[in-house]
Protein backbone atom coordinates (compact mmCIF):
# COMPACT_ATOMS: atom_id res chain seq x y z
CA UNK A 1 0.00 0.00 0.00
CA UNK A 2 2.84 2.33 0.97
CA UNK A 3 4.73 1.11 -2.09
CA UNK A 4 1.92 2.23 -4.39
CA UNK A 5 1.70 5.61 -2.62
CA UNK A 6 5.43 6.15 -3.08
CA UNK A 7 5.22 5.05 -6.72
CA UNK A 8 2.51 7.65 -7.41
CA UNK A 9 4.48 10.29 -5.50
CA UNK A 10 7.65 9.52 -7.46
CA UNK A 11 5.81 9.55 -10.78
CA UNK A 12 4.13 12.90 -10.11
CA UNK A 13 7.39 14.47 -8.95
CA UNK A 14 9.14 13.18 -12.05
CA UNK A 15 6.34 14.57 -14.23
CA UNK A 16 6.57 17.94 -12.48
CA UNK A 17 10.36 17.98 -12.86
CA UNK A 18 10.22 17.26 -16.59
CA UNK A 19 7.39 19.73 -17.14
CA UNK A 20 9.21 22.20 -14.91
CA UNK A 21 7.36 25.18 -16.38
CA UNK A 22 4.21 24.39 -14.36
CA UNK A 23 5.84 24.75 -10.94
CA UNK A 24 7.93 27.68 -12.05
CA UNK A 25 4.87 29.50 -13.34
CA UNK A 26 3.17 29.25 -9.94
CA UNK A 27 6.15 30.84 -8.17
CA UNK A 28 6.51 33.45 -10.92
CA UNK A 29 2.83 34.38 -10.52
CA UNK A 30 3.34 34.65 -6.76
CA UNK A 31 6.36 36.94 -7.12
CA UNK A 32 4.91 39.16 -9.86
CA UNK A 33 1.54 39.63 -8.16
CA UNK A 34 3.16 40.62 -4.85
CA UNK A 35 5.46 43.10 -6.62
CA UNK A 36 2.37 44.77 -8.12
CA UNK A 37 1.24 45.96 -4.70
CA UNK A 38 3.96 48.58 -4.10
CA UNK A 39 3.02 50.01 -7.52
CA UNK A 40 -0.69 49.94 -6.69
CA UNK A 41 -0.74 51.28 -3.12
CA UNK A 42 2.42 53.40 -3.34
CA UNK A 43 5.88 52.85 -1.86
CA UNK A 44 5.03 54.27 1.55
CA UNK A 45 6.76 51.99 4.06
CA UNK A 46 4.12 52.15 6.81
CA UNK A 47 1.30 51.10 4.44
CA UNK A 48 3.25 48.21 2.91
CA UNK A 49 4.38 47.03 6.33
CA UNK A 50 0.78 47.05 7.54
CA UNK A 51 -0.55 44.93 4.62
CA UNK A 52 2.50 42.70 4.06
CA UNK A 53 1.19 39.58 5.85
CA UNK A 54 -2.20 39.73 4.13
CA UNK A 55 -0.76 40.35 0.68
CA UNK A 56 1.66 37.43 0.89
CA UNK A 57 -1.07 35.08 2.10
CA UNK A 58 -3.79 36.12 -0.37
CA UNK A 59 -1.35 35.88 -3.26
CA UNK A 60 -0.14 32.47 -2.08
CA UNK A 61 -3.77 31.20 -2.10
CA UNK A 62 -4.30 32.50 -5.64
CA UNK A 63 -1.00 31.02 -6.82
CA UNK A 64 -1.90 27.62 -5.35
CA UNK A 65 -5.25 27.79 -7.20
CA UNK A 66 -3.43 28.14 -10.53
CA UNK A 67 -1.81 24.73 -10.27
CA UNK A 68 -4.80 22.83 -8.90
CA UNK A 69 -6.83 22.28 -12.05
CA UNK A 70 -4.05 20.07 -13.47
CA UNK A 71 -3.85 17.90 -10.36
CA UNK A 72 -6.23 15.22 -11.68
CA UNK A 73 -7.16 16.66 -15.09
CA UNK A 74 -4.19 15.22 -17.01
CA UNK A 75 -4.74 11.73 -15.56
CA UNK A 76 -8.46 12.03 -16.29
CA UNK A 77 -7.88 12.96 -19.93
CA UNK A 78 -5.31 10.30 -20.82
CA UNK A 79 -7.10 7.40 -19.10
CA UNK A 80 -4.61 7.02 -16.24
CA UNK A 81 -7.30 7.85 -13.70
CA UNK A 82 -9.42 4.85 -14.80
CA UNK A 83 -6.42 2.61 -14.24
CA UNK A 84 -5.47 4.22 -10.92
CA UNK A 85 -8.95 3.51 -9.53
CA UNK A 86 -8.53 -0.13 -10.64
CA UNK A 87 -5.35 -0.91 -8.69
CA UNK A 88 -5.41 -3.23 -5.66
CA UNK A 89 -4.59 -0.18 -3.52
CA UNK A 90 -7.62 1.86 -2.43
CA UNK A 91 -7.76 5.07 -4.50
CA UNK A 92 -7.76 7.17 -1.33
CA UNK A 93 -4.14 6.11 -0.67
CA UNK A 94 -3.07 7.11 -4.17
CA UNK A 95 -4.89 10.43 -3.74
CA UNK A 96 -2.73 11.13 -0.67
CA UNK A 97 0.35 10.46 -2.83
CA UNK A 98 -0.83 12.92 -5.46
CA UNK A 99 -1.64 15.58 -2.85
CA UNK A 100 1.81 15.23 -1.25
CA UNK A 101 3.39 15.58 -4.69
CA UNK A 102 1.29 18.69 -5.31
CA UNK A 103 2.42 20.22 -2.03
CA UNK A 104 6.08 19.46 -2.76
CA UNK A 105 5.87 21.06 -6.21
CA UNK A 106 3.78 24.14 -5.34
CA UNK A 107 3.48 24.62 -1.55
CA UNK A 108 7.19 24.22 -0.89
CA UNK A 109 8.36 26.72 -3.56
CA UNK A 110 5.79 29.21 -2.21
CA UNK A 111 7.20 28.82 1.31
CA UNK A 112 10.72 29.40 0.06
CA UNK A 113 9.72 32.50 -1.93
CA UNK A 114 7.63 34.09 0.83
CA UNK A 115 10.40 35.64 3.04
CA UNK A 116 11.92 37.36 0.00
CA UNK A 117 8.56 38.89 -0.81
CA UNK A 118 8.02 39.86 2.83
CA UNK A 119 11.31 41.75 2.63
CA UNK A 120 10.05 43.55 -0.45
CA UNK A 121 6.96 44.67 1.49
CA UNK A 122 9.03 45.92 4.47
CA UNK A 123 7.61 43.33 6.86
CA UNK A 124 9.15 43.72 10.34
CA UNK A 125 11.89 41.20 10.95
CA UNK A 126 9.98 39.66 13.89
CA UNK A 127 7.38 38.42 11.41
CA UNK A 128 9.70 36.39 9.14
CA UNK A 129 10.08 33.25 11.22
CA UNK A 130 6.37 33.14 12.02
CA UNK A 131 5.46 33.74 8.37
CA UNK A 132 7.62 30.76 7.39
CA UNK A 133 6.10 28.59 10.14
CA UNK A 134 2.56 29.66 9.23
CA UNK A 135 3.17 28.93 5.53
CA UNK A 136 4.68 25.54 6.38
CA UNK A 137 1.64 24.62 8.50
CA UNK A 138 -0.97 26.22 6.22
CA UNK A 139 0.09 25.26 2.68
CA UNK A 140 -0.60 21.51 3.17
CA UNK A 141 -4.26 22.50 3.71
CA UNK A 142 -4.20 24.32 0.39
CA UNK A 143 -3.19 21.12 -1.42
CA UNK A 144 -5.62 18.97 0.57
CA UNK A 145 -8.73 21.15 0.23
CA UNK A 146 -7.76 22.13 -3.31
CA UNK A 147 -7.47 18.45 -4.22
CA UNK A 148 -11.13 17.90 -3.34
CA UNK A 149 -12.10 20.81 -5.59
CA UNK A 150 -9.85 19.53 -8.40
CA UNK A 151 -11.52 16.12 -8.21
CA UNK A 152 -15.01 17.62 -8.21
CA UNK A 153 -14.53 19.71 -11.36
CA UNK A 154 -13.35 16.80 -13.56
CA UNK A 155 -15.37 16.72 -16.74
CA UNK A 156 -16.81 20.20 -16.18
CA UNK A 157 -16.48 22.94 -18.80
CA UNK A 158 -14.62 26.05 -17.60
CA UNK A 159 -13.34 23.96 -14.72
CA UNK A 160 -10.71 26.48 -13.64
CA UNK A 161 -13.27 29.19 -12.80
CA UNK A 162 -15.57 26.70 -11.10
CA UNK A 163 -12.61 25.49 -9.05
CA UNK A 164 -11.94 28.99 -7.67
CA UNK A 165 -15.59 29.40 -6.74
CA UNK A 166 -15.56 26.07 -4.93
CA UNK A 167 -12.21 26.25 -3.20
CA UNK A 168 -11.48 29.90 -2.35
CA UNK A 169 -14.29 30.19 0.24
CA UNK A 170 -12.89 27.08 1.93
CA UNK A 171 -9.45 28.73 2.13
CA UNK A 172 -10.77 31.57 4.34
CA UNK A 173 -9.90 29.94 7.70
CA UNK A 174 -6.32 29.33 6.55
CA UNK A 175 -6.05 32.94 5.42
CA UNK A 176 -7.50 34.30 8.68
CA UNK A 177 -5.18 32.35 10.96
CA UNK A 178 -2.18 32.65 8.65
CA UNK A 179 -2.41 36.44 8.65
CA UNK A 180 -3.23 36.75 12.33
CA UNK A 181 -0.19 34.63 13.25
CA UNK A 182 2.07 37.06 11.38
CA UNK A 183 0.34 40.12 12.88
CA UNK A 184 0.58 38.71 16.39
CA UNK A 185 4.32 38.21 15.95
CA UNK A 186 4.81 41.72 14.54
CA UNK A 187 2.90 43.21 17.50
CA UNK A 188 4.98 41.20 19.92
CA UNK A 189 2.14 38.85 20.94
CA UNK A 190 2.18 35.09 21.13
CA UNK A 191 1.71 33.55 17.66
CA UNK A 192 1.55 29.97 18.90
CA UNK A 193 -2.27 29.64 19.16
CA UNK A 194 -2.71 30.75 15.55
CA UNK A 195 -0.02 28.36 14.37
CA UNK A 196 -1.62 25.51 16.31
CA UNK A 197 -4.95 26.14 14.63
CA UNK A 198 -3.24 26.15 11.21
CA UNK A 199 -1.64 22.83 12.10
CA UNK A 200 -4.98 21.47 13.28
CA UNK A 201 -6.64 22.52 10.01
CA UNK A 202 -3.96 20.66 8.05
CA UNK A 203 -4.29 17.53 10.18
CA UNK A 204 -8.08 17.62 9.93
CA UNK A 205 -7.76 18.09 6.19
CA UNK A 206 -5.36 15.15 5.95
CA UNK A 207 -7.99 12.91 7.55
CA UNK A 208 -11.05 14.12 5.62
CA UNK A 209 -9.97 15.55 2.26
CA UNK A 210 -8.46 12.40 0.64
CA UNK A 211 -11.75 10.55 1.27
CA UNK A 212 -13.80 13.32 -0.27
CA UNK A 213 -11.47 13.57 -3.27
CA UNK A 214 -11.51 9.77 -3.73
CA UNK A 215 -15.33 9.75 -3.73
CA UNK A 216 -15.38 12.54 -6.33
CA UNK A 217 -12.86 10.66 -8.51
CA UNK A 218 -14.95 7.49 -8.43
CA UNK A 219 -17.89 9.57 -9.59
CA UNK A 220 -15.78 11.13 -12.36
CA UNK A 221 -14.67 7.83 -13.94
CA UNK A 222 -18.23 6.44 -14.18
Amino acid sequence: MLGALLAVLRRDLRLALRQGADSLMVVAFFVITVTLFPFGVGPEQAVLERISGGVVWVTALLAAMLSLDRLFQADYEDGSLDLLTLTPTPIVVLVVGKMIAHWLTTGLPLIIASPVLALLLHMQTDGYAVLLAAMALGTPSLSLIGGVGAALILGARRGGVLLSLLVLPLYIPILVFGVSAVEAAVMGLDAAPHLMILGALSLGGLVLCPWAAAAALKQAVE
Partner: protein
Amino acid sequence: MSDRSPSTPSPAAPLSAATALAPDLRFEGRGLVCLRGERIVFANLDFSLGAGEALLLLGPNGSGKSSLLRLMAGLLRPMAGALAWHDGPVDDDPERHHARTRYVGHADAIKPVLTAAEILRFWAQVCAESPPSRAALDTSVADALARMGLTHLGDVPGRMLSAGQKRRLNLARLLAAPAPLWLMDEPVTALDKASVRTLEGVMADHRAQGGMIALSTHQDVDLPGARVLDLDAFGVDPLDLHPDIDADPYTSLGLAAC
Protein backbone atom coordinates in the same frame (compact mmCIF):
# COMPACT_ATOMS: atom_id res chain seq x y z
CA MET B 1 -14.89 -27.42 -21.75
CA SER B 2 -14.09 -27.17 -25.42
CA ASP B 3 -13.22 -23.51 -24.88
CA ARG B 4 -9.69 -24.30 -23.82
CA SER B 5 -7.02 -22.91 -26.05
CA PRO B 6 -4.96 -25.59 -27.77
CA SER B 7 -1.68 -23.68 -27.50
CA THR B 8 1.24 -25.06 -25.61
CA PRO B 9 2.42 -23.67 -22.27
CA SER B 10 4.29 -20.46 -22.81
CA PRO B 11 7.53 -18.90 -21.64
CA ALA B 12 5.60 -15.83 -20.44
CA ALA B 13 6.05 -14.77 -16.81
CA PRO B 14 3.91 -16.83 -14.46
CA LEU B 15 1.15 -15.12 -12.52
CA SER B 16 2.23 -13.87 -9.13
CA ALA B 17 1.59 -16.00 -6.08
CA ALA B 18 -0.98 -13.56 -4.73
CA THR B 19 -3.16 -13.93 -7.80
CA ALA B 20 -2.29 -17.57 -8.41
CA LEU B 21 -4.87 -19.38 -10.46
CA ALA B 22 -7.17 -21.74 -8.70
CA PRO B 23 -8.44 -24.47 -11.04
CA ASP B 24 -12.00 -23.51 -10.10
CA LEU B 25 -11.43 -19.85 -10.97
CA ARG B 26 -14.69 -18.37 -12.21
CA PHE B 27 -16.00 -14.87 -12.83
CA GLU B 28 -19.64 -14.31 -13.62
CA GLY B 29 -22.39 -11.76 -13.88
CA ARG B 30 -26.08 -12.35 -13.29
CA GLY B 31 -29.01 -10.26 -14.46
CA LEU B 32 -26.89 -7.20 -15.21
CA VAL B 33 -28.70 -4.01 -16.16
CA CYS B 34 -26.72 -1.02 -17.35
CA LEU B 35 -28.17 2.47 -17.36
CA ARG B 36 -26.35 5.35 -19.09
CA GLY B 37 -28.01 8.71 -18.76
CA GLU B 38 -31.70 7.80 -18.96
CA ARG B 39 -31.28 4.97 -21.43
CA ILE B 40 -31.05 1.30 -20.61
CA VAL B 41 -28.10 0.02 -22.64
CA PHE B 42 -28.69 -3.64 -21.89
CA ALA B 43 -30.75 -5.63 -19.43
CA ASN B 44 -30.85 -9.12 -17.93
CA LEU B 45 -27.39 -9.92 -19.21
CA ASP B 46 -25.69 -13.04 -17.86
CA PHE B 47 -22.16 -14.18 -18.55
CA SER B 48 -19.73 -16.62 -17.08
CA LEU B 49 -15.99 -17.02 -17.54
CA GLY B 50 -13.96 -19.98 -16.30
CA ALA B 51 -10.22 -20.60 -16.29
CA GLY B 52 -8.81 -20.48 -19.83
CA GLU B 53 -12.05 -19.24 -21.36
CA ALA B 54 -12.63 -16.19 -23.53
CA LEU B 55 -15.67 -14.07 -24.18
CA LEU B 56 -15.99 -12.16 -27.44
CA LEU B 57 -18.32 -9.17 -27.21
CA LEU B 58 -19.98 -8.25 -30.48
CA GLY B 59 -22.62 -5.73 -31.43
CA PRO B 60 -23.06 -2.46 -33.30
CA ASN B 61 -21.83 0.90 -31.96
CA GLY B 62 -23.69 1.90 -28.83
CA SER B 63 -24.85 -1.61 -28.01
CA GLY B 64 -22.96 -1.50 -24.71
CA LYS B 65 -19.70 -3.39 -25.30
CA SER B 66 -17.59 -0.74 -23.63
CA SER B 67 -20.16 -0.26 -20.87
CA LEU B 68 -20.14 -3.98 -20.11
CA LEU B 69 -16.34 -4.06 -19.93
CA ARG B 70 -16.25 -0.98 -17.67
CA LEU B 71 -18.93 -2.60 -15.55
CA MET B 72 -16.89 -5.81 -15.30
CA ALA B 73 -13.82 -3.78 -14.33
CA GLY B 74 -15.72 -2.00 -11.57
CA LEU B 75 -15.57 1.48 -13.11
CA LEU B 76 -19.34 1.49 -13.60
CA ARG B 77 -21.89 0.17 -11.17
CA PRO B 78 -24.68 -2.00 -12.52
CA MET B 79 -28.21 -0.67 -12.09
CA ALA B 80 -29.26 -4.18 -11.11
CA GLY B 81 -27.62 -7.59 -11.02
CA ALA B 82 -24.35 -8.67 -9.50
CA LEU B 83 -20.80 -9.63 -10.41
CA ALA B 84 -19.11 -12.42 -8.51
CA TRP B 85 -15.95 -14.48 -8.38
CA HIS B 86 -16.06 -18.17 -7.44
CA ASP B 87 -15.19 -17.15 -3.85
CA GLY B 88 -17.56 -14.26 -3.34
CA PRO B 89 -19.23 -11.17 -4.78
CA VAL B 90 -17.04 -8.40 -6.20
CA ASP B 91 -18.63 -5.84 -3.89
CA ASP B 92 -17.43 -7.72 -0.80
CA ASP B 93 -13.80 -7.11 -1.67
CA PRO B 94 -13.25 -4.64 -4.52
CA GLU B 95 -9.48 -4.58 -3.89
CA ARG B 96 -9.27 -8.34 -4.49
CA HIS B 97 -11.26 -7.85 -7.70
CA HIS B 98 -8.86 -5.12 -8.82
CA ALA B 99 -5.87 -7.35 -8.08
CA ARG B 100 -7.35 -10.02 -10.37
CA THR B 101 -8.39 -7.71 -13.20
CA ARG B 102 -6.53 -5.71 -15.85
CA TYR B 103 -8.49 -3.30 -18.01
CA VAL B 104 -7.40 -1.99 -21.40
CA GLY B 105 -9.61 0.88 -22.52
CA HIS B 106 -9.66 3.29 -25.44
CA ALA B 107 -7.22 5.67 -23.77
CA ASP B 108 -3.66 4.39 -23.51
CA ALA B 109 -2.64 6.27 -20.32
CA ILE B 110 0.71 7.32 -21.83
CA LYS B 111 2.44 10.35 -20.26
CA PRO B 112 4.22 12.40 -22.94
CA VAL B 113 7.30 13.14 -20.80
CA LEU B 114 7.88 9.69 -19.30
CA THR B 115 9.76 6.99 -21.19
CA ALA B 116 8.09 3.74 -22.20
CA ALA B 117 10.04 1.78 -19.58
CA GLU B 118 9.17 4.30 -16.82
CA ILE B 119 5.47 4.16 -17.67
CA LEU B 120 5.45 0.36 -17.63
CA ARG B 121 7.47 0.24 -14.43
CA PHE B 122 5.02 2.58 -12.70
CA TRP B 123 2.01 0.45 -13.59
CA ALA B 124 3.82 -2.74 -12.59
CA GLN B 125 4.49 -1.13 -9.19
CA VAL B 126 1.00 0.17 -8.43
CA CYS B 127 -0.78 -2.92 -9.74
CA ALA B 128 1.27 -5.33 -7.63
CA GLU B 129 -0.33 -6.47 -4.39
CA SER B 130 2.98 -6.55 -2.55
CA PRO B 131 5.87 -4.25 -3.52
CA PRO B 132 8.02 -6.14 -6.05
CA SER B 133 11.79 -6.08 -5.63
CA ARG B 134 13.81 -3.80 -7.88
CA ALA B 135 15.34 -6.74 -9.76
CA ALA B 136 11.98 -8.47 -10.27
CA LEU B 137 10.53 -5.21 -11.55
CA ASP B 138 13.40 -4.73 -14.02
CA THR B 139 12.98 -8.25 -15.36
CA SER B 140 9.21 -8.10 -15.75
CA VAL B 141 9.35 -4.69 -17.46
CA ALA B 142 12.12 -5.84 -19.84
CA ASP B 143 10.25 -9.08 -20.62
CA ALA B 144 6.98 -7.27 -21.27
CA LEU B 145 8.69 -4.74 -23.58
CA ALA B 146 10.44 -7.54 -25.45
CA ARG B 147 7.26 -9.54 -25.90
CA MET B 148 5.41 -6.58 -27.43
CA GLY B 149 8.43 -5.71 -29.63
CA LEU B 150 9.16 -2.45 -27.80
CA THR B 151 12.64 -3.13 -26.40
CA HIS B 152 14.29 -0.56 -28.69
CA LEU B 153 11.75 2.07 -27.53
CA GLY B 154 12.33 1.63 -23.79
CA ASP B 155 14.08 5.00 -23.42
CA VAL B 156 11.81 6.91 -25.80
CA PRO B 157 9.42 9.41 -24.19
CA GLY B 158 5.69 8.84 -24.66
CA ARG B 159 5.18 11.84 -26.92
CA MET B 160 7.47 10.31 -29.58
CA LEU B 161 5.49 7.05 -29.82
CA SER B 162 3.06 6.39 -32.66
CA ALA B 163 -0.56 5.44 -31.98
CA GLY B 164 0.21 1.76 -32.56
CA GLN B 165 3.28 1.86 -30.32
CA LYS B 166 1.27 3.53 -27.55
CA ARG B 167 -1.32 0.80 -27.80
CA ARG B 168 1.37 -1.90 -27.64
CA LEU B 169 2.85 -0.22 -24.58
CA ASN B 170 -0.59 -0.19 -22.95
CA LEU B 171 -0.95 -3.91 -23.77
CA ALA B 172 2.52 -4.61 -22.33
CA ARG B 173 1.01 -3.54 -19.00
CA LEU B 174 -0.94 -6.83 -19.00
CA LEU B 175 2.35 -8.73 -19.07
CA ALA B 176 4.32 -6.54 -16.66
CA ALA B 177 1.56 -6.74 -14.02
CA PRO B 178 0.00 -10.19 -14.44
CA ALA B 179 -3.61 -10.87 -13.43
CA PRO B 180 -6.00 -13.66 -14.34
CA LEU B 181 -8.79 -11.60 -15.96
CA TRP B 182 -8.08 -9.33 -18.93
CA LEU B 183 -10.81 -6.91 -20.02
CA MET B 184 -9.94 -5.52 -23.43
CA ASP B 185 -11.95 -2.84 -25.17
CA GLU B 186 -11.10 -2.98 -28.89
CA PRO B 187 -7.42 -3.75 -28.22
CA VAL B 188 -6.43 -4.13 -31.89
CA THR B 189 -7.32 -0.56 -32.87
CA ALA B 190 -4.25 1.12 -34.43
CA LEU B 191 -2.25 -2.14 -34.40
CA ASP B 192 -0.58 -3.38 -37.59
CA LYS B 193 -1.05 -6.96 -38.77
CA ALA B 194 2.15 -8.26 -37.18
CA SER B 195 1.23 -6.73 -33.81
CA VAL B 196 -2.24 -8.28 -33.98
CA ARG B 197 -0.56 -11.69 -34.50
CA THR B 198 1.70 -10.99 -31.49
CA LEU B 199 -1.30 -10.04 -29.37
CA GLU B 200 -3.12 -13.20 -30.42
CA GLY B 201 -0.09 -15.21 -29.32
CA VAL B 202 0.02 -13.39 -25.97
CA MET B 203 -3.69 -14.01 -25.41
CA ALA B 204 -3.35 -17.70 -26.31
CA ASP B 205 -0.49 -18.06 -23.80
CA HIS B 206 -2.53 -16.28 -21.14
CA ARG B 207 -5.45 -18.68 -21.65
CA ALA B 208 -3.15 -21.68 -21.71
CA GLN B 209 -2.02 -20.65 -18.23
CA GLY B 210 -5.63 -20.55 -17.11
CA GLY B 211 -6.22 -16.83 -17.65
CA MET B 212 -9.54 -15.37 -18.79
CA ILE B 213 -10.24 -12.77 -21.45
CA ALA B 214 -13.26 -10.63 -22.26
CA LEU B 215 -12.66 -8.72 -25.48
CA SER B 216 -14.72 -6.45 -27.69
CA THR B 217 -13.78 -5.84 -31.30
CA HIS B 218 -14.99 -4.80 -34.72
CA GLN B 219 -12.02 -6.38 -36.46
CA ASP B 220 -10.97 -9.98 -36.93
CA VAL B 221 -9.18 -11.26 -33.87
CA ASP B 222 -8.32 -14.93 -33.65
CA LEU B 223 -9.59 -16.13 -30.28
CA PRO B 224 -10.01 -19.90 -30.68
CA GLY B 225 -12.99 -21.40 -28.88
CA ALA B 226 -14.22 -18.06 -27.55
CA ARG B 227 -17.86 -17.75 -26.63
CA VAL B 228 -19.66 -14.99 -28.47
CA LEU B 229 -21.88 -12.57 -26.58
CA ASP B 230 -24.00 -10.47 -28.92
CA LEU B 231 -24.93 -7.34 -26.98
CA ASP B 232 -27.63 -6.49 -29.51
CA ALA B 233 -29.75 -9.32 -28.08
CA PHE B 234 -29.92 -7.61 -24.67
CA GLY B 235 -31.03 -4.19 -25.85
CA VAL B 236 -34.28 -2.95 -24.39
CA ASP B 237 -36.92 -0.74 -25.87
CA PRO B 238 -39.41 -0.07 -23.09
CA LEU B 239 -42.12 0.91 -25.56
CA ASP B 240 -41.87 -2.46 -27.31
CA LEU B 241 -41.94 -4.43 -24.09
CA HIS B 242 -44.87 -2.66 -22.51
CA PRO B 243 -46.79 -0.72 -25.12
CA ASP B 244 -49.76 -0.26 -22.84
CA ILE B 245 -48.06 1.02 -19.71
CA ASP B 246 -45.72 3.77 -18.73
CA ALA B 247 -42.67 4.13 -20.95
CA ASP B 248 -40.50 4.96 -17.97
CA PRO B 249 -37.61 2.51 -18.10
CA TYR B 250 -37.53 2.14 -14.32
CA THR B 251 -41.11 0.95 -13.92
CA SER B 252 -41.16 -1.12 -17.12
CA LEU B 253 -38.37 -3.30 -15.78
CA GLY B 254 -39.71 -3.47 -12.29
CA LEU B 255 -36.74 -1.47 -11.04
CA ALA B 256 -38.69 1.23 -9.30
CA ALA B 257 -37.36 0.03 -5.98
CA CYS B 258 -33.70 0.35 -7.00
